[in-house]
């Protein structure tokens, strides 16, 4: 494989809790290839959400760097961050985070507006993505009229709209039932098979087991990094401790 889509290098983040420093991330490094379907697991407080925020440019690391498509995004100037977020990253959240006043179609459309995509192109793309998500007949419904699974599929369509390098999903199945969960995971896996790079943060082992690679975090560090083979045979990729 060529250049990794995502390179995380010696990433550390220290928060101050009063006068006590808290090391949320401690020298984390790993690479993700294009088309990988990867999960980051670990108990709460292990640093997985912090890691996701750093990759998603929602927060700045104390030291180390994140490279997406060979660009060191953590070094980007404040004014360039929105552009990088638009072009490189698609977010899928636990609480779906759709704009309640907009329909499913408009929620997908709005992400492309920020990227200044022309209207006709936006419409075509939104319809195409929502159809792909099986929401062709739900497009003009507001989030409140959609089921959890439908809302999350809308959010996935939105995340895909600007052709991002990576999809970051934070507990994407945290608020849906198991049947919907399986459907969403299957959808994400299909997307990775189409070449999308997908990074899922979860503490649901059933979800993690269906991804191609599991990074386990503990105390701000990577405890293990394992590749998962189709029949659930686990083979170590590399191990950090």
């Amino acid at each position: 494989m060529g250049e990794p889509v995502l390179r995380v290098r010696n990433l550390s983040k220290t928060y101050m809790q009063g006068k006590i420093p808290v090391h949320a991330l401690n020298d984390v490094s790993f690479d993700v290839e294009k088309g990988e379907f990867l999960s980051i697991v670990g108990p709460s407080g292990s640093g997985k959400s912090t890691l996701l925020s750093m990759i998603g440019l929602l927060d700045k690391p104390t030291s180390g760097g994140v490279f997406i498509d060979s660009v060191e995004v953590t070094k980007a100037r404040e004014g360039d961050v929105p552009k990088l977020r638009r072009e490189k990253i698609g977010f899928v959240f636990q609480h779906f985070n759709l704009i309640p006043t907009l329909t499913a179609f408009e929620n997908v459309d709005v992400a492309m507006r920020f990227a200044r995509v022309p209207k006709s192109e936006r419409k075509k793309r939104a319809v195409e993505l929502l159809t792909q998500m099986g929401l062709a007949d739900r497009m003009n419904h507001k989030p409140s009229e959609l089921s959890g699974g439908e809302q999350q599929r809308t959010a996935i369509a939105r995340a895909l709209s600007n052709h991002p390098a990576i999809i970051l999903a934070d507990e994407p199945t945290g608020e849906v039932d198991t049947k919907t969960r399986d459907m969403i995971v299957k959808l994400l896996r299909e997307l990775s098979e189409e070449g999308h790079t997908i990074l899922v943060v979860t503490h649901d082992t059933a979800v993690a087991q269906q991804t191609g690679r599991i990074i386990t975090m503990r105390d701000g560090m990577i405890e293990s990094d394992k590749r998962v083979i189709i029949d659930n045979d686990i083979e170590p990729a590399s191990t950090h401790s």
Partner: protein
Amino acid sequence: MFDLIIRNFSQRKLRTGLTIFGIALGIFAVIVMGGMSEHFSTMVERSISLTADKIRVLPEVGLFGASLNESKASDVKRIPGVSDAYGMLQSPLDPESLGFGGDMVIGIPPDKMGSVLKDTKLTEGRSLAAGDNYRTVLGSSVAREFNLRTGDEIEIRSKKPGRAKSITNIRNFTVVGVMEYTGSFFDGAVIIPLDTAQKFYNRGDTVSFVLAVPDPDTDTEELARRIELNVEKVKTFSPAELRKQIEQSLIIFTLITLSAAVLAAIIGSLSVMNTMLMSVSERTKEFGLMKALGADTRDIIFMTMSEAALMGILGGIIGVAGGGAVVYYLNGYLASRGTVLFSITPRLIVISIVFATALGVISGTYPAYRAAKMSPMEALRYE
């Protein structure tokens, strides 16, 4: 982006509606007060321009009832630089009124009509002529108020100055002419011959004031001083002094307008700011999400500010329309009673709308800043 703004806008209809209503009320006040002040200043402007070339000569003790003997007119006329001088008598048409802003009976020597009214034309009939006794030329408002035309009669009552009651004379005057609308105090004038006025009001040979017409190319300021020095017991108002004095009294109207505007500004902008802050904090998550989706700071500022500006514009339009409607009906009502109080000039409309929009934009600044500064992390964590 505008459909998004409109949508946010229409989400909270009641709150947005109330805010717009608040601004509209403020602008309504600006329009009504401003209309009044505009009317007064145009009226004063027109009145001054009609008399701008003449020096007013008044009795020295300018209290009510103090009067000037008509002989002063010839004294004034003798002064070098004065081409003509004549006395005028002024009295309220309704002797019971205080004489402020109401219709006035003005006694003018008939042969001086042209000098007094300058280029004011008559819409019907003729001007006064020598030998007209109980005949009158009416201002346009008076004619409209009493629905009078040439040939009709108008009843004039007189009363001894200073006395509370006792109408001394009642007399019908025949209308011989009606003046065009001038926008000045002449619209409320009932012009009668000076000698008839003196007789009718029992004023003997006295007049209210003398108007001195300067020779062309004479320095009116200097001439006014010369009149004061050479004629006993008079004081003069040159056109410039008159203007200054009237403008001073107009300051009060300007102040009323200004304070209405300032009040409207404070109330309106506070309510816009309140609404926008509420709406921004309610949408914390939405703005955070938009930033996570890659919205630029300027996208968010644009959206928030436009929402506030839209409230201002709508409030402004509604205020102007409401104020305009009220003024229109009020003027219609007042016109039937012979006076007009408001004029809504294009300038006033433009100022009001610009003002309302600026209010919206200014009070939207801080909420927009808050929205734009929101960290997507914090916003998304916020449940």
